[in-house]
């Protein structure tokens, strides 16, 4: 693409009396600048459509902690014990989060204030993800340059700037770990590949620091610490072992490990947990390899060396296995976590950890979402792999491995498409750049031939022989032009697709819901904030709110009230208790709620508006998670012939459980849709089965204007006399 753009501009640049090299540099830098800006502004749809606000669920926690960090300083943040969540347990925030994102945002905030830009921390948080997305494009450029050439780098920067797979997690307002982490991930990989290519201690040191930043930002660092050893192993097996690799890996691993252990959430896990063992194993393997190399160098007798090799390898393997076995048995090395297992075996979570399986972004990916997030990259990816294999080097092996493994993980979990995106962009960029370069070389050489031919005159025999050679080229040239146009068409389609996806699908904050009204006008449902702000203003400051864990972070951040469970699902039993309360009868539930000091219960209900991700639709997960810990809750009690229904044919337990009552309280009188009976649930398209709901221990405290959020107050116990 750059080469195509080069042609008309070069005339203009010649008038500046620039040399070709300077021209090229100028074009490259200006393209990069434009890409940098593009990556930023394409993520601002959400701000323009809605407002400068934090999106989704987890970002609210991040925002709240960042606010705390900027107000109270780093030490208070590090030692923060949060009483407002997980009542009555509380949460040691400093030790249970990845602080990279918050520290980054706070640092940007401090720098801006130092430069006398009195911005609000919210604006910094909202724009952190787009800013880092812009930086990622720069890293992609350098990475592409490192593994292929500058052209591939530029194309990679352009592709990743607008790739929906990445935009989905980095629009303005999506203040989540991933926003920073993808930058850190790619940066670490780039630095490591650079270190492997140069064998320089400085680069591997830099990659260790990049790894440290990644560890501080996201739990996905486990991917790095497993991919890099795997890559090293592959290089060892394919006989590409070199001193450069030795320096790069050892320095990166040792320093990276020491640095990573400084993050409290990781700590000694880095040397004790099963997920990190591969890296350590490869580290020792490398030492053995180096040692053997040295011995081989010292021993001239090959037979002797063979014997020595056998003994050493056997010893090393036995020692390693024994150490691993002992560590596992004594519990010193912890086994793999459920999340890790569910990555390797997609069905694992469904059977064993319903809380992971219940999250929609942990579902296996559908083909359509691959197409949606990658578009033409999905086809360019194999082509890029072909080019990589054609010109195999240490760097291309890395990108191939990164691409293949991350593609596998992307297939296992929807959210991991994000991790695959940079690799897919880079490999596709190689395909695009190599193809376009080949085609343009064809075009340009042809043109030159014609030019020289005409200037030299027809008399020259040399030119005529060249012309004879070129006879096959008119066809080739036309083909090249057609292919170039095809590539241009595809890429422009990609750009329009990306913009469309960004504006339509990924720019909704999910706190504010928008729908099209009857006359095509935009209707906004701001019920979540209505409810949270009501909680904040009109309930006692120490009120405890029980809701399903999805809304925990939002309630603490926006409502400023204590919650029982929240999105940091660290205590399964606690969540199961809430699930049990929601799926019990009211008089059983009240016991649980009293034991948890619950003052208010919040449910999300979409029956009036037709909002489908409400608590009734999530209810089966509550039953499953509750039933996983408390066997009194049995899933079949809520189903009729294996079917989940809320109408007249629903199971009696379903019709009388707390969740059903709270959602449908007084809904039976309501006419939701013209021509339908009262109590018609628009989200599920049925008339509800229990219209006469009486609440004994709870009373309606607040319901938002579109009934999306309903809050109930737990009544004090009745006087006995």
């Amino acid at each position, binding site marked *: 693409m750059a080469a195509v753009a080069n042609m008309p501009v070069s005339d203009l640049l010649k008038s500046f009396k620039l*040399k*070709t*090299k300077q021209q090229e540099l100028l074009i490259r830098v200006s393209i990069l600048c434009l890409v940098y800006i593009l990556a930023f502004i394409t993520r601002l749809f959400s701000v323009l459509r*809605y*407002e400068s*606000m934090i999106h989704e669920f987890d970002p609210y926690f991040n925002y709240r902690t960042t606010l705390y960090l900027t107000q109270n300083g780093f030490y208070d943040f590090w030692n923060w014990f949060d009483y407002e969540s997980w009542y009555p347990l509380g949460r040691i925030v400093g030790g249970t989060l990845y602080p990279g994102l918050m520290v980054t945002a706070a640092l940007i905030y401090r720098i801006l204030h130092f*430069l*006398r*830009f*009195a911005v609000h921390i919210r604006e910094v948080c909202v724009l952190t993800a787009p800013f880092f997305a812009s930086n990622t494009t720069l890293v992609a450029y350098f990475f592409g340059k490192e593994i292929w050439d500058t052209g591939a780098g530029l194309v990679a920067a352009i592709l990743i700037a607008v790739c929906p797979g990445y935009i989905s997690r980095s629009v303005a307002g999506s203040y989540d770990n991933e926003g920073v982490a993808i930058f850190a991930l790619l940066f670490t990989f780039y630095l490591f590949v650079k270190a492997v290519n140069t064998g320089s201690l400085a680069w591997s040191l830099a990659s260790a620091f990049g790894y440290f930043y990644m560890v501080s930002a996201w739990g996905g660092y486990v991917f790095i610490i497993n991919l890099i050893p795997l890559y090293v192993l592959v290089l060892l097996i394919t006989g590409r072992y070199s001193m450069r690799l030795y320096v790069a890996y050892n320095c990166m691993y040792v320093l990276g490990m020491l640095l990573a252990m400084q993050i409290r959430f990781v700590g000694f896990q880095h040397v004790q947990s099963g997920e990190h063992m591969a890296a350590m194993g490869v580290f020792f393997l490398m030492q053995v390899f180096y040692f053997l190399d040295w011995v081989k160098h010292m021993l001239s007798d090959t037979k002797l060396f063979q014997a020595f090799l056998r003994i050493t390898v056997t010893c090393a393997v036995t020692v390693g296995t024994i150490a691993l076995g002992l560590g596992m048995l004594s519990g010193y090395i912890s086994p793999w976590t459920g999340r890790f297992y569910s990555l390797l075996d997609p069905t694992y979570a469904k059977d064993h950890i319903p809380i992971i399986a219940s999250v929609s972004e942990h579902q296996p990916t559908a083909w359509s979402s691959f197409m949606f997030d990658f578009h033409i990259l999905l086809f360019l990816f194999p082509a890029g792999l072909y080019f990589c294999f054609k010109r195999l080097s240490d760097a291309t092996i890395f990108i191939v491995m990164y691409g293949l493994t991350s593609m596998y993980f992307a297939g296992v979990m929807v959210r991991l498409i994000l991790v695959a995106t940079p690799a897919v962009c880079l490999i596709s960029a190689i395909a695009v750049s190599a193809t376009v370069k080949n085609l343009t070389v064809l075009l340009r050489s042809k043109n030159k031939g014609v030019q*020289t031919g005409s*200037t*030299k*005159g027809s008399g020259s025999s040399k030119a005529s022989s060249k012309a004879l050679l070129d006879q096959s080229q008119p066809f080739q040239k036309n083909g090249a032009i057609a292919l170039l146009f095809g590539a241009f068409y595809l890429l422009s389609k990609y750009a329009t697709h990306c913009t469309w996806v960004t504006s339509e699908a990924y720019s909704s904050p999910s*706190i*504010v819901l928008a729908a099209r009204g009857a006359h095509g006008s935009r209707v*906004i449902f*701001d019920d979540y*904030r*209505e409810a*949270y*702000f*009501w909680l*904040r*203003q*009109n309930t006692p400051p120490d009120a405890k709110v029980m809701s399903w864990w999805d809304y925990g972070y939002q309630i603490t951040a*926006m409502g400023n009230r204590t919650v029982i469970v929240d999105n940091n699902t660290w205590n399964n039993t606690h969540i199961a208790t809430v699930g049990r309360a929601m799926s019990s009868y009211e008089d059983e539930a009240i016991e649980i709620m009293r034991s948890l000091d619950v003052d208010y219960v919040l449910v999300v209900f979409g029956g009036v508006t037709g909002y489908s991700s409400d608590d009734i639709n999530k209810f089966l997960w509550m039953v499953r998670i509750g039933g996983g810990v408390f066997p009194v809750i049995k899933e079949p009690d809520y189903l009729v012939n294996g079917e989940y229904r809320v109408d007249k044919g629903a199971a009696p337990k379903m019709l009388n459980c707390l969740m059903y009552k709270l959602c449908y309280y*007084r*809904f039976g*009188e*309501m006419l939701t849709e013209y021509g339908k009976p009262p109590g018609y649930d628009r989200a599920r398209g049925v008339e509800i089965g229990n219209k006469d709901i009486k609440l004994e221990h709870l*009373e*309606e*405290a*607040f*319901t*938002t*204007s579109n*009934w999306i959020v309903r809050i109930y107050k737990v009544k004090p116990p009745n006087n006995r006399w």
Partner: protein
Amino acid sequence: MAISRYVLLVFTIAMLASTAISDPILTKVNRHVENPGPLIMSEVLLAFPELQSKNLAYLTASSHETKGKPKGSVVSLPIKAVNLDDRPSAATFYSVLLPKEVAAGESFTLDVLAVFTHALRPVPEQITQADIQLVLYRDSVYYLSPYEVKVQSLSVKLPDSKIESYTKLESTKVHGSEIKYGPYENLPPFSLSPITFHFESNLPFAVAQELVREIEISHWGNVQVTEHYKLIHGGAKSKGEFSRRDFQARPNDRGASAFSFLVAHLPARARSVYYRDLIGNISTSHLRVDSRKSELVIEPRYPMLGGWKTAFTIGYGLPLQDFLYESEENRFLNMTFGSPMIELVIDTLIVKVVLPEGSSGISAAAPFPIKQWQETKISHLDIGGRPVVVLEKTNVVPEHNQYFQVYYKFSGLSMLREPLMLISGFLFVFAACIGYMHADTSISKSSASYLAKQQWEEVQVLIQKVQNVINRCLAMHDNLEASLRDLSRTGDVQACKAARKSADGLLKELSKEMKPLLTSLQAYSSAAQILPKVEELVAKERELQEKVMLKHSTAVEGYERKSGARDIDHRVALLQQKITALKQEVDDLLQFIDDI
């Protein structure tokens, strides 16, 4: 005060009105004052019982003389609070200074307007959603006065004709929502007789517990007003359930005392109005703009039931020239004090006027007593912070929406400070970049790679010089060609020869210049790769030079011999072909060397 003993006053309290608005009570007193005594009277005392005095928010008195002056010429009179030792301590006194002394026997009319807040008490204090809000108002049927009262009547206007109960006296008449008492004659000083009204009121009891108005002046043409409200529904507290179903189905019946919107009258040219709260923008607001005013209707996130609270911020920009006036160095801001919300009672109002950085000689003036102090605020691109004048007043009612002034000095040049700061900041960044590009940050100056790099740089400098020389040669060739063209046009052989001579000299010099460059280039090992190309370039250039010379001399010769143009062209043609080819090759070589 001795005066009052001798004074007999005739008061006609024409109207005491509990008006249509919510919490504040307005009392309007129309007094007809007569001075019967021997002394001249210059001030009138007003008394308020303790019950009322603590709620008193606003008090003005105006007089219009009885002798038929038009009503328009009403002057408000200065009022000050006085402490009287010999009076009952349960009352608070204010003295009104009369515009002119009233002689004995003369009379005049005095209008007193007093506004009370929090004088209506909801009874019962807690109601359910279905209940009707009832409020209680207590007053005295006799106007508390330190003077003897000749005639007095009282009329009470309630917001609604639905009256639960009221104190019945012998001379009470009810007309719809208006209750009349009196007239009473010849009352001694300090007569009191309590009356109470218990009536229905579903009017919005919007009370701002705290309102912070921040007025920020930018001399670039904008006055930015930001108002932070902390609002509460001051009526009967709601208890029990809040049923959205009932509220939506029968809003007049269930939750009638709730209010769901507020209206603010913003100044005419208000722009970029926003309405948000702590957790984001609130989408339920409407702005109606016409040429005289902008009306902003805002809905809180949820309907305000009794006792419910909310907090929000509205902000808008105003054109500077409408509010800021200047005389030489002095400038002053002239703005209304209170909130633009209509029918809003404010418990604590804090007005902060943020002046531009570098303002001095700051003072503020308001038409009523006010607490004021100064602080600083750091905003965009500030070094020391902007001076802020803070004005605080409690119990503010819409009657306080009067103009106040902030005077300060500010020189126009200070306006340029911020742009200059930005410019110098960017300059610094660029300078730092340049500095970084030129700085040698290498740690080991003796390492092989560092030396190689340095050597390569030197080679590049040399090659650049070579290229420079070649380019100048090529320019010389162009000169010669041009002279040939001139020759064919004018036929001036002498000029052409002169051009040739100077070119010869210059080219010789250039070739002299080239020699040391080539030799020094040969000395570098890293130049070995590029050297053959450079040498080839030099050789080709020399060849080209020779050909050009040959062509030149051929052409000149031809002209001297006066041979035909076609003949010359024919002779030069072959040379010309070679020259073009050579030129192409030289260009290619230059390009090639450039690309390395």
